[in-house]
Structures are given as C-alpha cells and as structure tokens.
C-alpha cells in the first residue's frame, strides 16, 4: 500500500490536496481537502444588500457573473422583485456566454492536457493532421501549412526551455494514447481558443459594460440601451453582438464538441472509470420571462442513476455538515444546518506545516459537507445534462445520443470521467444555440422601443420590510450554486453561499457517506504514483474551483497566495 499526496492539484483554481492509498497500481481510497480558506460572508455582513453582488462576484475569477446573478436573485427574492424581460434576457445572455467561455477554456487549457501529450505533438505529420482535421469538421484552419506553423511555434516554445503553462505536465507518460496528429490538432485549438476569447469578451463587455467582472443591478441590469446613442448599447453594437455570438457558436460546434468526441474515442476505458456517488442535483437555470418554473436547463434530483425518475429540487432540503471540516457550530456539532441557519466559524485543528499527511480520520478540509435530503450528490454539467435528459429535453437528448452513438457506448457510459467531459461539451452546444433565441427576443424588444432593463420600484430601502429572507439560485459552470440572504433593517444580517465545488469535493458526513470526488477516484489505475495523471483526469473532469469552495483565508498559516516569481 502506497500513500500518495498531490498538493496542490495543478490546473485548477485555488488549492486542492488529494491524499490517497494506492495498492497494486489501483487507487483504493482517496481524501480530498481544501487547504486554503477565506471569508466572503464576513465581508458582506452589514453591507447594503444592493452592493453585495459587487463583492461576491470577486470570490473567484472564473464564474464572476454567476455569483453576481445568484446574489441579485437572492435580494430580489427577499424583496419580491420581478425583473423586466430585457433584464432577464441580458442576464441569460451574459451567463450563457460565460458558461460557453468557461467550458471551452476549461477543456483546452486545463483538462485536455490530461489526454493530450503536448510534447508528442512535435512528432506529428502535418499532412495527416490536415486530413484528419478535415474529416472532423469544416473548421477552416485545417491546411498543412497552418499545422506546420503551429508545430514550429510549439517547437520554439518548448525549445525556449521555459514550459510555463505546460510545466508540471506528465509528458511522455504511458497513459497518453493519442496519435501525434491528434495531439497537434489539440495544440492548434488550444491556441485558437485563446484568440476566440476575444469575441466572448466583446460580447460580455457590450452587455455588461465591462469584462471581466460585468456590472449587475438589483432589479434588472444596468445596461443603457439607445439605438441612436454612442454612449449606449446602440444599433451597431447590437449587430456586433450578432457577429461575436456567431463566432462563439462556430468554435463550439466545429471545434470543441468534435474534439471532445475525437479525443474520447481513444480512451474508451475512461467511460467506465470515475463514477461519483450516482446521485445528481441541479437547481436549474436560464429562466423564461413570465413563466415562473420554466428553465432552459431544468432543475431536479436523480437518485442512484435513475435518469427516468427525476425528482423536483427544493432548496429547503439542503444542509451542511462540518463534522470533518475545520469549522465549529455554536450548538450541536454533529447536526447539519440549512444555509439560513448556517455558520462559518473557522477552527483549524490540522497539523502544522510542513506535514506529510493530514489526519484523515478526523477533520481534514476547509470544505464543508453539503447534503441533499441527507445524502451526497454530484452537481455540474453531468448532473444538468442527465436531469435535462431525464426530463425529456429534446436538444440535450439529441446531442447526448449523437455523442454516445459516435463513441459506440450506451447511456451507462455517462457515469464516468469522460461522461462528465462529454456532458460539459453537450450543454455548451445547447446553450450556444439557445443564445440566439434570447438575442432575437432582445433585439425584437429593442426594435419595438422597449429599452427597459430594470425596475426601480423597490430600490429604496424604505420600501423594504424590516426583515426579509431570500434565496438566489444559479447554475454556475461547475454546478448548482445557492446564495442565502437575511436582510434586517436594510442591511445584510446573514449571508451564506453553498457553491458547486463544495458539493463535489466534500469530506464524509457523520454517516460516513463520502462526496463525489472521493467516490470517483476509487478504482482509478495509477501506473506511477509519482506521476498521477490518471487521478488528474478524474479530478479535472469535475472542473474544481476551490477558490470559492472554501470560505475563509488561512489565517493560521498565512500561506502566500501571491504569485511567486523570482528572478
């Protein structure tokens, strides 16, 4: 039995540590620990509820918009505000574009490198790569000369001696199975994705005023619309949105989705590995105006893989344990708390660094353990896609069926590492397509002279009740996200956030039920414990974002979060 530690897990946001026992080349048991904590809830306490979105969207860099959306929704829910249609459409468009951006960048820049051997791309035959690309899609960047340029660029980059973004990869590992040409195509698309971001950034900046960290507003959106003004979202800018949306969608359909399928086809064993807890949860998102319960990505709960029996989601059934996390509750330590009663009292009892191992039989993480109806669930793209599939979502069903058919697998293959990766690309295609409907409706409203993006009816705190409770739910790229607010005398009295990664990366609850990361890692082959690329595959398939999963900065160790760059 070998005890293995990966700390930090690279190519994710924030600090995640994995400890594991490996026996005969197979991982037998794993412990996931968030080793850094910070306190957003403490920063927003006693603030004006209308300002909270500005702070919470800075919890982390990637899902900025979605934290802001969950926050303004929580306040609107507390105060009984219904936002106007344009406000809703603009939010959907920004959130949708962020999801598209996040998923594409996660794939090429963080996750694909688990499957793609960057250095092996140097052995590719550019003519073969060109033929292969042309067989995959009609993406125009496919001639041999283009692939030669990419190859030369990569050669110079690797030759410079500073691998930078590619440092710390396990290049040459026996687990890499792609032909050199597929590796080269993936490198080309890695670079294309960087360029592609321009359209995304422009689109979000047009609607949200700025990018990154666009502007939000309790009551709607702050977007100024005037077709004839240079200072507002005018006719030519609305046309520019069309162009950028088209660019975003082209890349998703012609590059990202086909690449996922092409790469997955070389790793069939990973459709059998990496299942989590078999339970899935989505709160659902992308509302329709005037239809209270209609969400483009529906909410729901699936127990034990039963896709055809999706239950309704109710936030009342969410609660969090701290029995294995470095927090205390003011009363019963062993009981779970609903977020309205939630507490974030840090109490570090782990070993003093430097240490070899955490006390995995006791408390070992800054991540709490959220449970739904007292059971662990997985959240994220796979959960959303399975729930949509189960609820008969036409487009999701078509895309999933197309993917599984091309890979020659059944739906059971979705409960796996590659299932998550495939689901992420499926929902990206679906959302990119749906964007047009929101865009067209928005344009129709503006053309009809409807420039209203927000209601100011309950803007003034004197119109508020003395006390109010609100819940704001959203589907972050990484999964279900909830913000719970208690407003008292015009100020934030309590604020609790349960983020997607907390669900997935949680330690066990008092019943010993483990979370999705820990469950998914059991049975992972590990050819070389010093180079655990297989473990990274499964962990990255969840797209961890520990920066917001943990809540308070580590005041005990004062670890540096600043960049360490020494000349």
């Amino acid at each position: 039995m070998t005890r293995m530690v990966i700390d930090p897990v690279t190519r994710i946001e924030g600090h995640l540590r994995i400890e594991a026992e490996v026996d005969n080349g197979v991982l037998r048991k794993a412990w996931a620990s968030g080793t850094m904590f910070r306190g957003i809830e403490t920063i927003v306490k006693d603030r004006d509820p209308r300002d909270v979105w500005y702070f919470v969207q800075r919890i982390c860099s990637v899902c900025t918009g979605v934290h802001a959306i969950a926050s303004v929704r929580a306040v609107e829910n507390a105060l009984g505000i219904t936002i106007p249609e344009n406000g809703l459409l603009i939010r959907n468009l920004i959130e949708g574009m962020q999801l598209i951006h996040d998923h594409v960048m996660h794939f090429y820049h963080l996750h694909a490198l688990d499957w793609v051997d960057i250095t092996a791309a140097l052995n590719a035959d550019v003519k073969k790569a060109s033929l292969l690309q042309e067989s995959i899609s009609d993406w125009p960047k496919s001639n041999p000369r283009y692939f030669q340029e990419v190859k030369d660029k990569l050669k110079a980059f690797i030759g410079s001696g500073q691998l930078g973004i590619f440092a710390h990869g396990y290049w040459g590992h026996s687990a890499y199975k792609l032909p050199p040409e597929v590796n080269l195509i993936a490198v080309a698309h890695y670079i294309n994705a960087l360029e592609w971001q321009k359209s995304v950034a422009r689109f979000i900046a047009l609607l949200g005023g700025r990018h990154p960290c666009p502007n939000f507003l309790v009551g709607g959106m702050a977007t100024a619309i005037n077709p004839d003004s240079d200072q507002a979202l005018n006719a030519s800018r609305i046309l520019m949105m069309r162009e950028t949306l088209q660019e975003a969608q082209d890349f998703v359909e012609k590059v990202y989705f086909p690449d996922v399928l092409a790469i997955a086809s070389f790793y069939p064993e990973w459709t059998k590995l990496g299942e989590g807890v078999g339970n899935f949860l989505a709160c659902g998102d992308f509302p329709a105006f005037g239809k209270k319960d209609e969400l483009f990505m529906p909410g729901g709960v699936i127990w034990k893989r039963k896709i055809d029996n999706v239950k309704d989601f109710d936030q009342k059934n969410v609660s969090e344990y701290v029995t294995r996390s470095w927090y205390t509750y003011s009363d019963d330590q062993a009981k779970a708390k609903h977020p309205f009663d939630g507490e974030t009292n840090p109490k570090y009892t782990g070993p003093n660094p430097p240490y070899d191992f955490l006390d995995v039989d006791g408390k070992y993480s800054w991540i709490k353990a959220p449970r739904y109806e007292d059971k662990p669930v997985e959240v994220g793209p796979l959960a959303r896609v399975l729930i949509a599939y189960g609820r008969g979502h036409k487009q999701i069903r078509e895309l999933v069926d197309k993917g599984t058919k091309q890979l020659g697998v059944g739906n059971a293959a979705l409960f796996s590492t590659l299932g998550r990766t495939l689901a992420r690309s499926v929902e990206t295609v679906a959302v990119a397509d749906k964007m047009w409907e929101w865009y067209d409706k928005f344009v129709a409203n503006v053309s009809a002279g409807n420039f209203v993006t927000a209601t100011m009816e309950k803007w003034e705190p004197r119109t508020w009740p003395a006390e109010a409770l609100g819940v704001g739910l959203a589907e972050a790229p990484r999964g279900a996200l909830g913000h719970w607010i208690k407003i008292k005398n015009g100020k934030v009295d309590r604020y609790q956030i349960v983020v997607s990664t907390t669900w997935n990366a949680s330690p066990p609850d008092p019943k010993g039920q483990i979370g999705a990361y820990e469950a998914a890692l059991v049975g992972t082959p590990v050819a070389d414990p010093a180079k655990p690329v297989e473990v990274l595959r499964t962990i990255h398939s969840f797209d961890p974002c520990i920066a917001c999963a943990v809540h308070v900065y580590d005041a005990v160790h004062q670890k540096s979060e600043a960049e360490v760059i020494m000349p």
Partner: protein
Amino acid sequence: MTKVAVVGLGNILMGDDGAGVRVIESLERLGSLPGNVSLVRGETAGIAILPHVEEADLVILIDSVRFGGKYGEVRVFRDEEIQTDRAPAVSMHDVGAKDLVSILRLASSHLPRLLLVGIEPKNVSSSVLLSPEVESGLKGAVKIVLAEIGGEEVKEK
C-alpha cells in the same frame, strides 16, 4: 504608435492582493494619460485578460508579488526575468501573471515587451483594505508606470 496595456491584477477582497487593481484606480484618477495607453482592471481574471493585451507592444502587469522585499516595496521585472516555470500555479487567480506571460509567449503573433511591477504584500487575507505599508507603496508603483509609459511617448516622438 506603440500601444501600451497597463493591467492591474489581484483580488480586491483579499487585502494587499488587490494592490495591482488599486494602482490602476490611481492611474484612472490622474485622467490625462497618453492616448496610446489603455488601463485594464484585470482583477482576478487570467486568461480572460488576453484579449485586452494581445495587440499591445508593451504590457505592464501590476500584481502583488512575494519577492522577499520589505512590505510595500516595489520591484520591476523585465521580460526574461519573469520566470514562468517556478512553482505550480498557487495563485487564487485562475492563472496569474506568470501564466499570462507564458501564454503570450506561446500564442501571440508578435510578442510584446513585458514588464511586471511587483508589490510585496504584507496581508493577503479577507479584507477590502490595504495594509499601511502597501498603501504607501502604491505611489512608487504609479511613478514607475508613469515613467514607463512616458518613456514610450518620448521614443515615438
């Protein structure tokens, strides 16, 4: 004309980590910067900053950097001094300054000159305030940036 992008990185909710963003705010308040200079509040975004900088000839990144100086001390790192292989990404930003530099080296069709203005942080923990040491270090960072962008202007003339 030489294009200059000045990018402030960091999380304004994490005390001194937000120093780079504060420098951008100070520069914004000055108001009268040369027309070839764009100021970017990069905040915690990494890769997403690329569209803002890839057409620039000079990219000035401002970020909190632990280089072993006194709290609030400002140090300038130029081009090759900005190592990109040291230590895995331990930034809370999805990718930090060093990854951005690395990505520019790989993906940009023309490589801009790079300058990293590092400010030694004291307190990186949940707070919207800077420590007094870093607060007083901001002026130095602003001065360095102004000297750099002024220098570009002179060359152009």
